[in-house]
């Protein structure tokens, strides 16, 4: 009878265990060949998406050492045995690698030259040449002792990063592109299928057996084999080590799979091999959750595609940015997406019965929906709904013919009459997401506002953001998306990222900020009873038109998840103040969010007025004055800004946020000494504040303090390698310091990264062709069905 995978895995483990006991056999090359055969047989069978932990071998018995117990001391004989195993493993791995390279390298397309085999991706690999896919211990091998992690990973997006139709459709277009081809797909696969990229699979006439890794995407030993982060540039900016699951007593890596008892005897050495400290840090996630479109891909210029990492860095959760509107406890990417949960399957990596999640719950509903991973889908939806990530606030009403804002709604009295035309102010706060709403490939993901107004019988008075029968969203809905366009002004509907030259608009909401969406409707003349206004933020993992690109139009409806909502009942006649809903923000925060939204929509007077309401409610809250001041700075009302910032500093003398804005005002007033003092103090308290570093660098530059300015701009580049101010100023500063090579590099990066001045016209071409959504590109707009004649666009 054919062995199951688990049996094979177990026999591999047992085989290895026995080998240790019989040295002459255990460390023979033959042993390695058999182990490799076991490994290959096992890998070839891991295709079914239904595969779960039940298919794994039972874990070997293991009693964890007592807390604080020192590592087990090996006898000299045991040390010798490990040394011999290591030597043989290195010999076998190196020989296999050499032979593999001899087979695959001659046919490989070195499109970017022999020194850049993985370009346009940024990935690198330890050692010489390509790394054979067989060098990676399989997920089933890891899963034997880490069954909980394995079962979660199998359903998560990381394990399905390559094989899903949602990815394959996009990358196949690039592969089939006449002027590009599979070499260019290394840009995408460096993150989606790094084993394939590093294994020379991405070439015409590939000699590589794809069945060994395609279905595992990012397997355990891709993330856990990374030995270094190259930069925070993204596009897989990591250095992959030769995979190893254990180190010897000197800390040197032993490549490939080893018998389980070797690991169980020295779990601390296993940790040393696979648990680098950077795995806990956002910079590790940045390697792939930050992407750019380089000129090597698009034959155009550098375009920053997305960067969840920088968005996090600028959010309150990083505690690196003093300029956020709110504060929070330090939380990493892992803190939200890899929360520690109780285990239900054996896992020797668990601590106190809990394990960090290897589901990476986020917004990926399409993948578990397609594969039938019901548990992952349910947990993903629960995650989206449970996090208090967004706050929806039907904040105010404004009746036609009146300038009075009825706000905050629910807290003030007002009256409403039949035939009243009403503007509803809906404020949506990105409250607790550590990145933008929506992050990353926001041309594919879809979050939008659905607003309904219904009478007491449930009859619809107004509806925005509905789904049409064909699954497409109401084109006039307010959506948190962007519209990437080609140089012909055509919407890039199918994620052909190499054709993107500009975005017609980007309505994503950055972390901690708010957006005001205004809706206009008329109360029917014959209305009976109250009307109910409901505002929701809905989310669908992939746009309907993109799903249609993948499957054609005959696919099932993909999940739409309501992330947050709020309803309010508006009585006809008098409305009295009512008790706040427990989920509502406090009144001062409601005003504050309105102020933030108005600031971002360039409504400065109204923004100052909103922040002033915060002052009235919290007169001792320094940030309220700072908010007034910063808005007035943007509005160029420097005198009143100074008054507000001074007040903030009186209340909170060391407030870095107020000091930053004070620095800007001191510069304006010519008080350079104080300007420098302010910015220095901010940098001392927030050394990773890119804004403070930039402004302090500019100040030093203006004072011709070359060394000091250089230090700040270099530090800024360490935080954000794309900062244009840093590139520009460093190119000049290096030249002044007689460092022409570095100056030229900075100048080249500045030229490559600065926005093409012609790019906005591509967006305008698109908007001209699409009047139905062009309003969305204007920050201050209103959604209305009412026509100039008084009726509604839909004839109601």
């Amino acid at each position, binding site marked *: 009878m054919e062995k199951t995978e688990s049996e094979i895995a177990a026999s591999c483990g047992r085989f290895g265990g026995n080998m240790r006991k019989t040295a002459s056999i255990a460390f023979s090359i033959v042993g390695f060949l058999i182990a490799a055969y076991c490994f290959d047989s096992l890998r070839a069978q*891991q295709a079914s998406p239904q595969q779960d932990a039940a298919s794994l071998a039972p874990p070997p018995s293991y009693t964890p050492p007592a807390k604080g117990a020192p590592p087990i001391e090996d006898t000299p004989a045991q040390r010798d045995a490990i040394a011999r195993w290591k030597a043989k493993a290195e010999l076998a791995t190196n020989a296999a690698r050499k032979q593999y390279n001899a087979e695959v390298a001659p046919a490989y397309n070195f499109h970017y030259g022999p020194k850049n085999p993985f370009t346009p991706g940024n990935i690198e690999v330890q050692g010489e040449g390509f790394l054979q896919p067989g060098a990676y211990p399989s997920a089933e091998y890891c899963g034997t002792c880490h069954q909980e992690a394995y079962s979660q990973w199998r359903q998560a997006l990381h394990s399905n990063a390559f094989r899903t139709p949602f990815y394959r459709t996009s990358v196949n277009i690039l592969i089939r592109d006449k002027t590009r081809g599979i070499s260019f797909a290394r840009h995408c696969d460096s993150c989606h299928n790094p084993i394939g990229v590093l294994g020379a699979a991405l070439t015409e006439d*590939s000699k590589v057996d794809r069945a060994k890794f395609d279905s595992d995407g990012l397997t355990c030993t891709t993330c856990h084999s990374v030995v270094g982060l190259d930069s925070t540039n993204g596009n897989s900016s990591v250095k992959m080590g030769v995979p190893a699951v254990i180190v010897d007593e000197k800390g040197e890596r032993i490549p490939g799979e080893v018998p389980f008892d070797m690991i169980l005897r020295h779990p601390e050495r296993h940790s040393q091999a696979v648990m680098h400290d950077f795995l806990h840090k956002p910079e590790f996630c940045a390697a792939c959750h930050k992407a750019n479109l380089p000129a090597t891909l698009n034959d155009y210029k550098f375009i920053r595609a997305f960067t969840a990492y920088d968005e996090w860095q600028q959010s309150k959760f990083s505690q690196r940015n003093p300029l956020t509107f709110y504060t929070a406890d330090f939380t990493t990417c892992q803190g939200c997406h890899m929360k520690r949960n109780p285990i239900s399957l054996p896992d020797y990596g668990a601590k106190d019965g809990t394990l960090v999640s290897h589901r990476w719950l986020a917004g990926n509903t399409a993948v578990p929906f397609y594969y039938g991973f019901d548990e992952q889908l349910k947990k993903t939806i629960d995650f989206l709904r449970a996090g208090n990530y967004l706050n929806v606030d039907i904040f105010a009403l404004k009746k036609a013919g009146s300038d009075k804002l009825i706000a905050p709604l629910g807290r003030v009295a007002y009256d409403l009459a039949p035939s009243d035309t009403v503007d509803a102010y809906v404020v949506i706060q990105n409250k607790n997401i550590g990145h933008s709403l929506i992050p990353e490939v926001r041309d594919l993901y879809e979050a939008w506002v659905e607003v309904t107004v219904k009478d007491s019988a449930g009859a619809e008075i107004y509806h925005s953001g509905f789904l049409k029968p064909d699954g497409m969203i109401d084109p006039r809905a307010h959506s948190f998306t962007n519209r990437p366009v080609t140089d012909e002004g055509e919407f890039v509907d199918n994620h052909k990222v190499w054709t993107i030259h500009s975005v017609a608009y980007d309505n994503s909401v950055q972390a901690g900020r708010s957006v005001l969406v205004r809706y206009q409707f008329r109360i029917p003349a014959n209305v009976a009873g109250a009307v109910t206004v409901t505002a929701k933020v809905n989310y669908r993992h992939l746009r309907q038109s993109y799903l249609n690109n993948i499957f054609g139009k005959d696919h099932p409806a993909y999940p739409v998840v309501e992330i947050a909502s709020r309803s309010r009942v508006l009585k006809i006649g008098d409305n009295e103040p009512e008790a706040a809903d427990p989920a509502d923000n406090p009144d001062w925060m409601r005003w504050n969010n309105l102020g933030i939204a108005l600031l971002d929509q360039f409504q400065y007077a109204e923004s100052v007025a909103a922040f002033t309401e915060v002052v009235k409610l919290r007169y001792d809250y320094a940030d309220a004055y700072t908010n007034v001041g910063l808005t007035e700075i943007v509005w160029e009302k420097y005198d009143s800004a100074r008054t507000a910032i001074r007040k903030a500093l009186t209340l909170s003398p060391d407030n870095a946020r107020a000091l930053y804005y004070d620095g800007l005002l001191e510069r304006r007033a010519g008080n350079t000494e104080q300007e420098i003092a302010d910015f220095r103090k901010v940098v001392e308290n927030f050394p990773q504040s890119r804004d403070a570093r930039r402004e302090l660098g500019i100040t030093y530059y203006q004072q011709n303090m070359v060394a000091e300015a250089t230090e700040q701009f270099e530090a800024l580049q360490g935080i954000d390698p794309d900062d244009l101010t840093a590139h520009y100023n460093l190119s000049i500063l290096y030249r002044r310091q007689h460092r022409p090579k570095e100056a030229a590099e900075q100048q080249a990066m500045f030229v490559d990264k600065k926005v093409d001045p012609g790019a906005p016209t591509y967006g305008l071409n698109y908007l001209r062709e699409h009047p139905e959504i062009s309003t969305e590109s204007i920050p201050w707009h209103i959604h209305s069905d009412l026509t100039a004649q008084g009726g509604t666009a839909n004839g109601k």
Partner: protein
Amino acid sequence: MASNAARCGRVLRSVAPSLLGVSLLGLPMTMHAANNCAWLNEATASGLLGGSAVGEVTEAAGQPTVCEFTQMDASAKRTLRISVEVVTDPHERVGVLEKGCGGNPTPLKAIGNEAASCALSDRKIAVGKQVIGRVRDQVFIITIASTLKNDPVLQGDALDSKIYTAAEQVAGNLF
């Protein structure tokens, strides 16, 4: 793999007039060069068939395009055959093909738009399995078979797993 699809497409476009002429003569055109199957490369086929396999692609106007990989050893001839056609009524076509498939087709999750597998009942072979499915309007049939009864390479769960892997590769490249 998919790059081969692009390459094959380019080749086909460049030779389209000749291809038309050949098809008018009613003769299939066979490309014998290794590794030119658009949906599965020879190395992957070799892994699935348990040894070095040789591939062959057959294209003829009005006929499904076929890739056939053959692996032979002393005891058995193992084949992996992929047939792809573009049709106007793909869902119906899949249904018709499934009716002609031996045994009760078992629906396969997450292969293309839809897919099902079934055992082969061809007398010429000793063991075999088939997957019928589609990606958009591209209908595919994948067959793995061996002439050896109780072939240790293609048995039970291993055969199920291998044909699933082949189907995932083919569908992935058809997307």
